[in-house]
């Protein structure tokens, strides 16, 4: 039986009267490239924050690599890497200093940290600015550095919140290749992105969250199979997404309502 990397049970998060995440049951097998989709405000980032320890759930439980997060937060965090929303960088360090800081925070020895830091900076094409502070990096460079920091300790699960936003095509290609290689070697990648083409190309499995509830989960083929009609097998992820999220008719304003704009 395959190892379960992420399992949530009735995971819930409320902010006052608003239930941002409403009792979701997620299950991600180790080594999967998992896409987590949803419209704006659906609860994607809140879920990632809970799964990475940045936000406490109001109810429910989470297990990562078989460990209960609430009971073993440090052990869990040692095995995961995160690129959070906003990236979480210390902007007054240089890229190399930040990677060395993160490496040491994850308990790597100095030599290993130094070596991996140099290799990652080279890979991310950030090595030509050794004295530039992160505050002076462009958005794309900051994103690449956040990715480097997330993998420096060789995590078994990688959480990526919009990882390709602002990253140039060249670097994005290299990153995708790196991620594909990581999943081949057993790393689980949990990714959110609004670019459905990327998710469709990279991810083997997908879950869709809508208004805080998990409305679909499975492999792309399983989701396609759920689409009725003979065109089901040719359906793109975008069509699946729209058919699931927009099925109550409230999500896509009719263009006729904006007649004053045309």
């Amino acid at each position, binding site marked *: 039986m395959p190892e379960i990397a992420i399992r949530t049970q009735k995971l819930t998060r409320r902010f006052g009267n608003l239930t941002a995440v409403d009792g979701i049951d997620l299950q991600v097998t180790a080594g999967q490239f998992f896409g987590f989709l949803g419209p704006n405000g659906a609860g994607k980032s809140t879920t990632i924050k809970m799964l990475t320890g940045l936000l406490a759930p109001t109810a429910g439980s989470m297990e990562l690599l078989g460990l209960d997060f609430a009971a073993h937060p440090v052990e869990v965090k040692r095995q995961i890497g995160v690129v959070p929303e906003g990236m979480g960088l210390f902007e007054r360090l240089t890229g190399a200093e930040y990677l060395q800081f993160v490496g040491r925070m994850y308990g790597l020895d100095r030599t290993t940290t130094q070596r991996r830091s140099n290799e990652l900076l080279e890979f991310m094409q950030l090595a030509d600015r050794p004295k530039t502070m992160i505050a002076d990096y462009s958005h794309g460079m900051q994103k690449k550095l956040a990715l480097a920091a997330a993998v420096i300790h060789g995590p078994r699960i990688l959480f990526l919140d919009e990882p390709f936003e602002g990253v140039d095509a060249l670097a994005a290609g290299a990153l995708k290749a790196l991620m594909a290689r990581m999943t081949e070697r057993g790393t689980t990648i949990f990714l959110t992105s609004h670019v459905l083409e990327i998710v469709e190309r990279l991810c083997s499995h997908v879950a869709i969250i809508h208004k805080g509830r998990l409305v679909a989960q499975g492999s792309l083929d399983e989701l396609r199979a759920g689409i009725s009609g003979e065109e089901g097998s040719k359906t793109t992820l975008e069509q699946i997404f729209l058919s699931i999220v927009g099925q109550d008719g409230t999500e896509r304003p009719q263009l006729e309502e904006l007649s*004053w704009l045309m």
Partner: protein
Amino acid sequence: MADVAQSVGILEQIRLVAGLRWRILRNSLRKKNNRLDLIGLILAGALSSILVLGLCFAFYAGAYAFFSKGRPGWIASLFWGIFLFWQIFPVLMAGFGASFEFRTLLRFPLSLSAFYVIGLAYGLADFAALASVCWLISMTIGATVAKPGVLPAMLMIVATFVLLNVTLERLIGSWLERLLSRRRTREIFLALFVLSMVSLQFLTPFLNRYGAAARPVFLRFLPYFAWLPPSLAGRALAAVTQLRPAGFLLSSATLLFYLVVLSALLWRRFAAQYRGEELSETAAPLRAVVRPAAKKAEGADGLSLLSPQVAAVVRKEFRYLTRNGFVFLTLLVPPMLVVLFSTQFAGKHPTVSGKAVSAEMFFPGMMAYLILILMAPAYNSFAYEGRGIQTYFMAPLRFREVFLGKNLMLVSVLTLEIVLSLGILASRVGLPSLPMLVATLVAIIFTVVGQITIANWSSLNFPRKLEFGRMRGQRQSGMAVLIAFGTQILLGGISAVILFSGRWTGNPWLPAEAFAFLAAAAVAGYFASLDHLAQLAEKKKETLIEALCR
């Protein structure tokens, strides 16, 4: 064809901006921490109102006296007071300003003239401007009561003076904004600013020593001041009462000339902003010359006794300290103040008056002052972390390690500062008796460790983001300030009573013994608190992340 937005009148746009600022303030009060700040704001507002009203009477009385006693030219001194306040106070108080970027309005369909007028109106909605206008009105009433015939000229001169001041204030603000748009310039400016503020402390001893010699030099330059706007306003009004129309015309025309020139300069600045002046500080892309990364191997780890996590936090804190011009500068201030106070209140320096404070009292007093200054930032110790705070919560560590690293860095800095100050004191004033020296040093351990525990708690509960080298919107949480103030008064009071107990009981070693007991209790309390604080950090992480990542 899509509908196109209709043009909006300037008055309507000013109303919209005022409404926007009000809504920003109102919405910010929805948060509990900000409501606590409001209490502080109301208190500050009440005190400011008392000050403004009190000075209104003073300006009224001054103007009345000058005109009724035949000395109308002296009203220039009142104009000078208002002018200096209006131009200097906004720069000094920039840190307390609302964090609203006036330039963001440029995204809306405003004409350049509307942008200019809104900019001026925005300048009038400032505390310095409002207070100054109140004082100018009081002056006008005072002058009119003394000499009713002066009213038309007074109204004209005061209106010109108001316009000139608001234009100049906006011009200075606009140039400063341009100058400070780059981070490095901003930090240098802030460092120079703080240094000049500290240097002002040396003014009294300087005047005591060189005042008499500087007086003739100052008097030689005085006539040139007559051609500056406040003097011109006073001279114009004096000319009216002395029935010298030519003098009035010359002075008021020169005042108008100033206004026109300043307006033209401000128009140029606003026009540049309107055209989309780029003030971004993002570094320009490098040329395609790839430099190899610095690969020098780091030497032996000087922090090898610490866990990797604590050592990493200490290193990061050190790097942040050396890159934060403002905080770095605060380290220079305590030794400077030791030098300053020793020239005024203690020792045998020629500037010390006859009632010099003995080293027995001066030494503990100076140490208390140093701790007061150096400990203040610890009550909001995550202020400069920004989004980096998330790293602490994502990494596999307990938060006690973060506190240990941060506190270790703070204690190292404090130790360095105290040793440096001790050296200065020993050379300039002399050291106190051995029992007092020991008692003070142990008292430092008690107060510092005691404060660190409370400061850690305060940092978790009342975090407020501060940015490197920025002046606007850089305000600590009111509650953190209150806690720091209360703790320092409490611990300072306890320490003072214990220090004096040696004198009262006739046992000079009693304070040292009492402080040794308290210091041991404080150290034990500190280590006992770390786990509780780590749990609290876990509970408060959302507040922390929200406050620091915005």
